[in-house]
């Protein structure tokens, strides 16, 4: 029999098609990959376990309400996180108000209006770079700009170390991220939808408002919420623009006064407390972290929920 | 449903239209065949001339219709039954047109031999033969109009009668050739030949109808 016939004779074909050896390399490879995933997850588990178990004494002895509601203090027995908690939320709102509209609008311009000119390209590259600049450099910017230069406006009473300065700094920090995620969401809107709208005589703005934005909304929402989460966790820039970690009064004052007043934030407090030598602050820090993680989980969870929710609805 | 006949509604309509026009053309030819028989039997020159004149219209319609079918083929990429239909229709048109020409040939023969009297036996044979041929042609048209697959085999038999009559006519002519004069005898034998051919064409039409419907020709090979 010649080679061709060999190739087609049923028993030789059967032999050729039958599994010969176990694929050890393949199995090993799978094990290694799975291992790295397991290790990564284990680290997360350990982290959560350490923090939560470390915080248990606080919950046991003080309770959530008391811990969150108490004023900050140097005494571990009575120290709470109220100003930091309140400050973080305030900063978030301020940041959102500053960064989201500007960022989304900028992204709309870049994706929907701008033509592909040298200027546009520079702006785009610039934004990508800004997103990669370390957060502490934004702190420097805030320090130079909002604290030193504009201190008279941002916080005349507090040498510029105010909520406004902190909020603006975080706002600038997240702005490029908001622009990039929004632009990405806009880019994910199929051109065919725009063409469909333009084809029936929609103006650019009508196209954006009725078709592009509604489709991009979940993506924009997810991206911006995640960027707010980022702002929430930042400590370094706030250190530079003067986040306070000791007691200060948050007595009744109007909105402007509040904004121009001193501030604290939970991440800053974590930093400060973790460096304190007293053993009592270990548990307090852990408890503080648990509070932070819960807030973050709420924020990010919302984002992921929104995304999963809309991803099913809108195909491209 | 909006499209009662499916997605190629208009294509079907085009095919129906072509079929209808072909049958109409056939009816014109049939009319000519009948008139030319009448003219032959009653020795009517005017009728013969009318037949010749009518053929001009037939030819024009034939050309137009042939082109129409050709254009449908070019534009609709027919396959299977549709292609069988269109290709066969082209052939059927040709058979019909040829039958028209044969009627004209008869008429022309008549105009060449003005004024004659047929022996009664021949007259009656001629009458039967041309009626038979016209009948077969008529049946072929009906089979075409109704896309009746069974007609192919049936007409083959019916055409045998025409052939028999033609044979009888030849014999009769040969017997009487001296009475009638050679020219008339030859002319009449030609008419017999033409009527035989008309019958053949009709059979071809019917066989192609069978082909359209079934994809196969009846027993006897087609076009022979």
């Amino acid at each position, binding site marked *: 029999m010649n080679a061709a016939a060999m190739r087609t004779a049923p028993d030789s074909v059967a032999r050729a098609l039958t599994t010969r050896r176990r694929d050890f390399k393949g199995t090993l490879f799978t094990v290694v990959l799975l291992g790295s995933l397991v290790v990564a997850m284990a680290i997360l588990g350990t982290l959560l376990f350490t923090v939560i178990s470390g915080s248990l004494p606080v919950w046991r002895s003080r309770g959530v309400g008391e811990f969150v509601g108490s004023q900050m203090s140097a005494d571990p027995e009575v120290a709470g996180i109220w100003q930091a908690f309140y400050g973080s939320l305030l900063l978030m709102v301020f940041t959102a108000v500053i960064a989201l509209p500007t960022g989304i609008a900028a992204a709309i311009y870049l994706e929907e209006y701008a033509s592909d000119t040298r200027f546009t390209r520079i702006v785009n590259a610039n934004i990508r770079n800004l997103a990669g600049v370390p957060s502490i450099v934004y702190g*420097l910017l805030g320090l130079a700009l909002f604290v030193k230069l504009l201190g008279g406006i941002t916080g005349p009473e507090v040498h510029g170390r105010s909520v406004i300065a902190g909020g603006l700094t975080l706002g600038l920090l997240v702005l490029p991220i908001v622009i990039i995620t929004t632009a990405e969401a806009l880019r994910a809107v199929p051109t065919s939808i725009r063409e469909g709208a333009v084809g029936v005589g929609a103006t650019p703005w009508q196209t954006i408002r009725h078709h592009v934005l509604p489709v991009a909304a979940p993506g924009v929402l997810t991206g911006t919420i995640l960027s707010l989460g980022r702002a929430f966790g930042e400590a370094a820039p706030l250190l530079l623009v003067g986040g306070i970690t000791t007691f200060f009064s948050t007595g009744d004052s109007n909105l402007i006064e509040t904004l121009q007043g001193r501030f604290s934030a939970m991440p800053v407090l974590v930093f400060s407390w973790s460096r304190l030598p007293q053993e009592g602050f270990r548990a307090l820090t852990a408890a503080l972290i648990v509070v932070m993680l819960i807030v973050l989980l709420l924020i990010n969870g919302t984002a992921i929920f929104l995304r999963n929710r809309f991803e099913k609805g809108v195909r491209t | 449903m909006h499209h009662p006949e499916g997605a190629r509604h208009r294509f079907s309509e085009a095919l129906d239209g072509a079929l209808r026009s072909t049958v109409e053309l056939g009816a014109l030819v049939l009319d000519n065949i009948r008139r030319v028989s009448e003219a032959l039997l009653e020795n009517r020159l005017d009728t013969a001339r009318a037949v010749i004149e009518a053929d001009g219209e037939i030819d024009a319609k034939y050309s137009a219709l042939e082109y129409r079918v050709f254009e449908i083929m070019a534009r609709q990429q027919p396959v299977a039954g549709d292609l069988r239909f269109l290709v066969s229709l082209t052939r059927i048109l040709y058979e019909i047109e040829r039958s028209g020409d044969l009627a004209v040939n008869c008429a022309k023969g008549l105009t060449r031999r003005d004024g004659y009297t047929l022996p009664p036996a021949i007259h009656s044979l001629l009458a039967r033969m041309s009626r038979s041929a016209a009948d077969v042609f008529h049946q072929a048209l009906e089979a075409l109009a109704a896309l009746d697959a069974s007609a192919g085999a049936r007409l083959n038999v019916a055409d045998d009668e025409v052939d028999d009559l033609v044979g009888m006519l030849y014999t009769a002519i040969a017997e009487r050739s001296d009475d009638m004069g050679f020219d008339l005898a030859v002319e009449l034998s030609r008419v017999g030949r033409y009527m035989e051919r008309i019958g053949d064409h009709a059979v071809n039409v019917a066989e192609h109808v069978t082909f359209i419907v079934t994809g196969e020709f009846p027993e006897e090979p087609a076009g022979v």
Partner: protein
Amino acid sequence: METHGEESAMQTIEEQLRGVPARIRRERWIRRFFFGAAATSVVISVAIVASLVGEAWTFISNVDLPLLRSIGWFPRRGLYDISTLFAGTILVAGIAMLVAAPLGLGSALYLSEYASPRTRRLLKPVIEVLAGIPSVVLGFFALTFITPTVLKAVFGDAVGGFNMLAAGIGVGILTIPLVASVTEDALRAVPRVLREASYGLGASRMTTSVRVVVPAAVSGVVASLILAFSRAVGETMVVAIAAGATGGSLFSWDPLTNGQTMTAAMAALAIGSDRVRGDDYAFQSLFFLGLLLFGVTLILNVTSERFVRRVRQKY
């Protein structure tokens, strides 16, 4: 043929085609508004560079240059040895990459190529949540768990309470989700048809992963690593908490002792920013460091982008 009626009908069409002036004006204003927003980003970067360069220039022009090369980084004592900070930065970022790269890439590859759709749907969000953990938390974790529980067990007393190794590991953990998430996205973006082509040729899952999917996604994989490195270089709080050295640090490559990175040095300077005036130019050195950091990350980002683009162009 041109009757009067036709002419006017024609004009109507032409007039109609001219559109409504009010609408055209409104569209123009909307466009200007969006343009303004986009211009802000340019303003910010100009502001950053301007604010950094100004103060940094003061620093450079007033500090004795020999002081930039000394035994360590002690700004309040007027010693500004930059190499100390570079060494620390590279040490931390390097350790971080040793942790993040294998775990991140491995996890991503598993999730994208091996995991069942259900597993992926379950774990991908977990990784994203992990990505959102603030750096101070990792600092705390490094200080209170990695050092005392893990490192002490391995190195014994050789390791200090504050050390660069713990900081590096902390930063590494911080960047695992980044690497995993970006890489996984890149791997998922490889068209299914390429995998099918590979399977169709009789390739196993491993061959397909390693020789088709990863090479096709290489730009994304590399980008994720560079991004992670850049993030590690710019990371402040983990080091500031876990590596100690608040006041300053001697030049050292030893990961088991305390040390200083550029960012941590800035944080250290800033904590007591009231006292920043302790020395003449300590405050300005902050901006000098900021400028350096800005430059380094800029270069990294540009490199990563160049690289990615080059790889993309090739294919």
